[in-house]
């Protein structure tokens, strides 16, 4: 038990460290001063009202939400179908398909972004919403496939057999038995896809049109020129929104399981 103490101290230190950005951003966003300072001076909502005066942030926020939502729905649908084929059937080329589905995880986003830009320019969808959406779906699919495959790995197919024996037809069995039991995995896949898309910078960087940009990218660009409490207030909004999703994710699936998959994939 004495061994726990130094370990506990280091752990505490690391936990503070990785959460420090948020511990700093949120107080900073309420500063009354016109610049970032420590400790934040006074208290004011001014940097929050300021957001409303910056249409580019509001627009990119809604743009990001829309992009992430469509990505989540489509990536979950596509990924779930593929995972079901992989788990249920034995067929030639299964290993290759499995490897392919996870490959976007093993290639750096930077390269995925560049490759997509070059190719999309050729076929004329560079800088379009479709192009951006496709790339976001691509990087979300591996997570969905992994999550649903894990969900399926504990799925007992004799439950489906039991359903058939009781007189349920295949679609009925899928709807009444398979789908409800996979729901946690599918919902987690959807939330994870949403966050993957919503957080992404490196792929979006190459694919957005000049006039429509995603929120993280807008912050990224803004930050390279100006550092003021406006970034803090926008970030705080995003943090709160993300926290909401994270809590749901933890409740539905458990973060540990989620990341267990994530780290194995590389």
């Amino acid at each position: 038990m004495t061994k726990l103490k130094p370990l506990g101290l280091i752990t505490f230190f690391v936990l503070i460290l990785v959460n420090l950005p948020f511990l700093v951003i949120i107080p900073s966003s309420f500063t009354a001063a016109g610049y970032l300072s420590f400790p934040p001076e006074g208290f004011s909502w001014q940097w929050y009202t300021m957001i409303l005066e910056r249409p580019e942030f509001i627009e990119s926020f809604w743009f990001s939400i829309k992009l992430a939502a469509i990505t989540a729905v489509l990536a979950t649908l596509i990924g779930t179908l593929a995972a079901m084929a992989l788990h249920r059937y034995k067929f030639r080329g299964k290993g290759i398909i499995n490897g392919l589905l996870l490959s976007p995880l093993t290639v750096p986003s930077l390269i995925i972004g560049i490759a997509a830009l070059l190719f999309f320019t050729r076929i004329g969808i560079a800088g379009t919403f479709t192009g951006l959406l496709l790339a976001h779906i691509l990087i979300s699919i591996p997570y969905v496939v992994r999550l649903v495959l894990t969900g399926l790995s504990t799925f007992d197919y004799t439950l489906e057999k039991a359903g058939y024996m009781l007189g349920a037809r295949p679609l009925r069995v899928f709807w009444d038995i398979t789908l409800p039991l996979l729901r946690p995995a599918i919902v987690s896949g959807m939330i994870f896809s949403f966050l993957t898309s919503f957080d992404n910078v490196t792929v979006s960087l190459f694919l957005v049109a000049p006039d429509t940009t995603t929120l993280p990218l807008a912050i990224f660009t803004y930050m390279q020129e100006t550092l003021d409490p406006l970034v803090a207030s926008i970030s705080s909004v995003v943090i709160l929104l993300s926290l909401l999703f994270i809590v749901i994710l933890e409740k539905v699936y458990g973060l540990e399981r989620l990341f267990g998959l994530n780290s194995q994939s590389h």
Partner: protein
Amino acid sequence: MSKVIDVELRSLMKKFQNNIVVQDFNLQVEQGEFVSFLGPSGCGKTTTLNMIAGFLDPDGGDLLIKGQRMNGVPPYKRELGMVFQTYSLFPHMTVAENIAYGLKLRKISKSQIQERVGRVLDLVKLPHVADRYPKQLSGGQRQRIAIARALVIEPSLLLLDEPLSNLDAKLREELRDELKRLHQEIGVTTIFVTHDQEEALSLSDRIVVMNHGFIEQIGTPKDIYNRPASEFVHTFIGKTNRLEGEVAGHEGDSLIIQTIGGLLVEAKSANLMLLPGQKATVFIRPEKIRLSADTAPEGRNRANGQLKLSSFLGSYTECEVQANGHSISVKLQTVDKGVELVPGKAVSCSWDAEDVLVMPAERG
């Protein structure tokens, strides 16, 4: 008296790729009968059950249920009940919802469903768990509910796929008796798949012993135990002593065999087609052998030797006797006080000619 045949399998055959896993399977199951498929894993018993259930299509032969040819009919149209080894209760439904599921699919009215669910829960003696989820039940309770779920739709045939294998020893026995009681009460035609000979012996009207995709024997439990059709059936159904030798001659309706170790074994009502000089194998069940301390001279069905091991197992004691180069195991009721079981002691084994089984050695 005419018998109603509920299930008929005619030369049923199944292969996976080029492996034939079930071959030449012929069986008629009468209404109300309890039939077990018994055999080691990989013998084809589960494959046969899956063909009856409709999860596999036979590659040859016919399957008839209630006189209707069922080849190619999907499981959900067969109106059968099935209980699985892994219970397979739907974890997202309560006990009542699990049981009601099959009834709902049959568009039965709510009040009727409620009544029938209640009745079947009473039948399995678990009326108080209706609102619980499967997770909140013990293994034994889960399997009772699974049985209830299968029975509630009043299936024409109940299929049991090793339903007791996942339970621990004590529960297994309890649920075995429960199955017996249920079968006596409702008399549903039942096919039971198991690798446990005790389960098969205690529950069945008839047993189908299978090995390597073939039927070795079909018979009542007593037939199977006392008159095995093959060495496989005999050895699979319980412990036995196996002595090799050759036929020495005939004596009335008895057959005399001399074992390799020089013992003379007399067998009554054995296969008299065996000719003198032919190699034969003799089987004697350990519980049919008596042990005594007297040292009468050796004779027919009597072997003198030395006690090597004895293990006290509660209601009985297992002994190993070394005699004439044979190692003979003997199962004694513990109440026997005739012999003091000290290793090294000189003892004498004897048995009756009626309890000896002889098979030609060529069969394997």
